[in-house]
């Protein structure tokens, strides 16, 4: 089958897409690689070949280290919370109760909200002078005086994570719910009549069905979280005191604010490599799971 040669007509159908992909993805990617070995500026001279200088400089740079750990912290917390809350909400929605269909429909809302609007909304909620969070916590007696949630290094990253989790746990919940509803009723009934307790039922009946779809959600969310830019740019611009500066924000500053195209490109390339490693690792795990299970 795969050795069979494709007729010319098929290639003609593919041609426009291939041209577009090469122009707007393939060539820019190759050019990023070329730039990463040069000292090119964004405007002006083309720059000279500087070997691995950009990479060695970046790897020994404390800005890079702190941005890496900020990104890692943001991704780990966001994705973990989204998975845990998402699965719990899916388990809830798998029960029978009044308004179940309505609640499932509500899950669409945060997910459909544009990221920019989500970031703006939470920035308003966290506002140090008039924000709803300060007002609510003070009126409920949890807080004595208004705080600058996004203005203090101690709380800014947490505030960002909350905004990210609120928008993205519904996606995980919907994926997990779909998986739960695929579990045949007789398997569950058999487990109950065998006297399996709640935990054992979850572990041996529910979890195997959830694992595959959850891995997919995990891959998608981790890659997205690792690329995070919009949310941080709008809410804190990487501040205060660079405490929320992610790798993507760092590339933006390096390549566009400071116009150092060369070192910006080398940084972008390193992020791409990290994401590739993540994706390959996940694909590997998924293959393993698919091989073992069902």
């Amino acid at each position: 089958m795969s050795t069979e040669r494709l007729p010319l007509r098929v290639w003609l159908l593919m041609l426009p897409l291939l041209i577009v992909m090469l122009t707007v993805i393939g060539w820019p990617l190759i050019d990023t690689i070329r730039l990463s070995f040069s000292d090119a500026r964004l405007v002006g001279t083309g720059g000279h070949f500087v070997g691995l200088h950009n990479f060695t400089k970046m790897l020994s740079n404390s800005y890079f280290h702190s941005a890496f750990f900020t990104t890692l912290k943001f991704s780990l917390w966001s994705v973990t919370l989204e998975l845990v809350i998402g699965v719990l909400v899916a388990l809830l929605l798998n029960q029978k109760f009044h308004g179940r269909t309505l609640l499932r429909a509500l899950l669409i809302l945060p997910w459909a909200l544009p990221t920019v609007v989500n970031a703006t909304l939470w920035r308003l909620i966290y506002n140090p002078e008039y924000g709803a969070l300060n007002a609510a916590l003070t009126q409920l007696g949890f807080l004595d005086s208004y705080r600058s949630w996004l203005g203090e290094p101690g709380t800014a990253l947490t505030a960002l994570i909350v905004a990210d989790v609120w928008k993205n746990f519904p996606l995980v919940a919907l994926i997990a719910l779909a998986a739960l509803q695929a579990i045949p009723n007789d398997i569950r009934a058999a487990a109950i009549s065998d006297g399996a307790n709640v935990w054992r039922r979850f572990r041996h009946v529910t979890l195997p069905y959830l694992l595959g779809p959850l891995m997919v959600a995990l891959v998608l969310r981790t890659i997205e979280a690792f690329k995070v830019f919009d949310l941080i740019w709008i809410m804190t611009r990487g501040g205060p005191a660079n405490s929320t500066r992610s790798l993507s924000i760092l590339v933006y500053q390096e390549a566009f604010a400071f116009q150092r195209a060369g070192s910006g490109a080398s940084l972008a390339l390193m992020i791409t490599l990290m994401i590739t490693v993540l994706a390959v690792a996940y694909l590997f795990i998924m293959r393993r799971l698919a091989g073992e299970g069902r």
Partner: protein
Amino acid sequence: MEHQSLIFRIFIHTMALLVAVVILAPLAWLFIMSVSSSVDLSAKPLHWWPETLDFSRYSLLFSQSDNSAGAAFMSSLGNSIKVASMATIAALVVGVPAGWAASRNPQLGWTLGGVIGTYMLPPVALSVPLYLILAKFGLLNNVFGLALVYLSILAPFVTWLLKAGFDPIPRDLEDAASIDGARLDQMLRIVILPLALPVIATALIFAFLLAWDEFFYALLFTSNQNAKTLTVAIADLAGGRVSDYGLIATAGVIAALPPVAVGILMQRALISGLTNGGVKG
């Protein structure tokens, strides 16, 4: 189903209520901010419900008078519609034939790998060369230039969506039509398009929304009303010295309306899409 105890049922309903409140409260607050007077919004203690509903910000943003907040907002709204439409149409033009070819020829499965690969690519990996290309051709701060850049996101996305949508359309139909001596264009028009149209429409809507929501490239490649999109305009409002928070909220509500409306209307399709994507892996 198993018998549920009263305590368990109360617990389930309480948790459901909690989840509903967590989802709705921020959204409701966005809308309330947009219709509250600035006096209400800056009151301490905060007024959670406005004295009178104030829709004046909506008419302000949709006003066309020169140099007003409305004029800037309207031009960014127009730019968003232009860029998203152009990019969507271009993506469909390249995506429909490619998606069809990939669907009918399993040997082209590698294209799917390519598509997943481009989805993983962080936009920063392409941003510097794309900037240089646009600058070279004078397409910075230009709706055509931005639409071209958006193709890097929309073209693979649309192709993948269309391929998955075309797969269930039976091949027998094409074979029968070609045996009957139909020309390729007749076959497309009479047999395939009617069946493929819902798939194409879905891809069109999602591609448009993807472009509508995009922020990173728009921030980098646009600088004023000539090409600035709605997302950048909102970020400007949020990050600027706008004293009326209600105005920022209003812009947010307007930008959120199209995707949220589509999300509600296409709920069923969305959820089944997630199911398929999620379960197939």
